[in-house]
């Protein structure tokens, strides 16, 4: 950091340093943000500080689905209108957002908080597999929908889950893998096209 600490007040350099740790924010952007805040109304700055503090203080992991929540169990797990016999497995909390946006899925979720990645030393013990098995053993779930990403680690995780859950005789489904809406066939790779052919549907 090139900020000259002798000529600048300590609170300013400190905030510049903190901003600089954020992804996508270089030293110049950090300076700009800091001086912007210095000139903004006191209320706005306090609101930002408050929002940041709450982020860590008020949020926990839902004890059922392990999504990030401010109430435990989370709103989805508490909702009696939702279908408690279906459970959708996702890699990260952020993956729930696009699924909810479809308004097509009314079941529950389970967040693994990562994927199996052998060369990074991440296996089932580093993820929320144990919690999932416990949950499946003591619940009314009849279908498990695997919504891990359609890439190598996501597929590996899905295959491993399938192996792990098979003895429980729960229906296991995988999100369809094929062509994205609005794309060109010309650019599709062979794996995607093979999957699209395998999963073709009568119309």
């Amino acid at each position: 950091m090139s900020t000259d600490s002798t000529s600048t007040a300590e609170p300013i350099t400190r905030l510049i340093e903190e901003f600089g740790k954020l992804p996508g924010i270089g030293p110049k952007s950090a300076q700009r943000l800091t001086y912007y805040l210095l000139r903004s109304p006191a209320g706005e700055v306090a609101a930002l500080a408050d929002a940041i503090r709450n982020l860590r203080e008020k949020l926990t992991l839902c004890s059922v689905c392990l999504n990030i929540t401010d109430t435990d169990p989370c709103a989805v797990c508490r909702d009696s209108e939702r279908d408690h016999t279906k459970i959708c497995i996702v890699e990260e909390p952020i993956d729930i957002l696009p699924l909810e946006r479809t308004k097509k899925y009314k079941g529950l979720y389970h967040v693994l908080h990562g994927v199996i990645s052998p060369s990074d030393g991440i296996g089932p013990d580093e993820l929320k597999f144990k919690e999932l098995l416990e949950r499946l053993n003591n619940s009314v779930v009849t279908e498990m929908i695997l919504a891990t990403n359609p890439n190598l680690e996501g597929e590996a995780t899905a295959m491993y889950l399938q192996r792990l859950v098979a003895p429980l005789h729960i229906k296991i489904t995988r999100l369809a893998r094929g062509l994205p809406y609005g794309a060109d066939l010309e650019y599709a790779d062979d794996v995607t096209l093979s999957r699209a052919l395998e999963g073709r549907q009568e119309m």
Partner: protein
Amino acid sequence: MTAPRTYQTEAIVIKRIKLGEADRILTIYTPGFGKIKAVAKGTRRPKSKLGGHVELLTHSRLMLARGRNLDLITQAQTIDNFLPIKDDLDRLSRGLYMAELIDSFTGEHIEDPQLFELLLETLKQLSQTTDCEPVLRYFELNLLDNLGYRPQLQHCTDCNSALKPDTNFFSPKMGGVLCHQCGFNEPMARPVSLNALKVLRLWQNCNFTAAMKVKINRELASELEQIMREYIRYLLEKQLKSTTWLDRLKAESRQV
């Protein structure tokens, strides 16, 4: 004269890490340039035109543009996606182990067309086989051979005497076999059976197809695995991370 701005190469993707919002840095192994790192823009978006062509363990033809730091992948076309590996958890896990192995043992921009051929051939064999372990062992042995770590299996590496058809010892430190006498005095050496020695000697000197014809029972397979694993750990001075996962898969499949 300056080098051309773009170039084409075949490549096998051996590693990829996330970069920024939707990009990835790929580590690829090529016949003409050895191991290189390159940026693949936008590959984490669903509509990426590179996407599936630059997935791990995929053999592709790539067009790259020279960058100041890392080169940029501008076009990609799959040659072989090795779908039978990706559709099977056991094969896939072995494939990832191979990728980690080759990444750990090679430096960037050191060309080794033979090593590329070995990797390609191993992925082809892995796609067809029902028994992954011999494929892995043959790969390990010949990878080390290529890199100059070929284990000496003909004579005792200490006293240079011919080996007797008896239990001998394998010493990672000496890079080969010790005779019965020398092995006893070397605490780090492990006993190696006559059958294991014979298989290793054969695999050092035959092609893949011939190597895969050897029948290996479970006991021998596990001995060969231990010998190679200790030797590799000694050379790298670390345990490869994917071995933990391989061990777990094997232990769980034995339980069922």
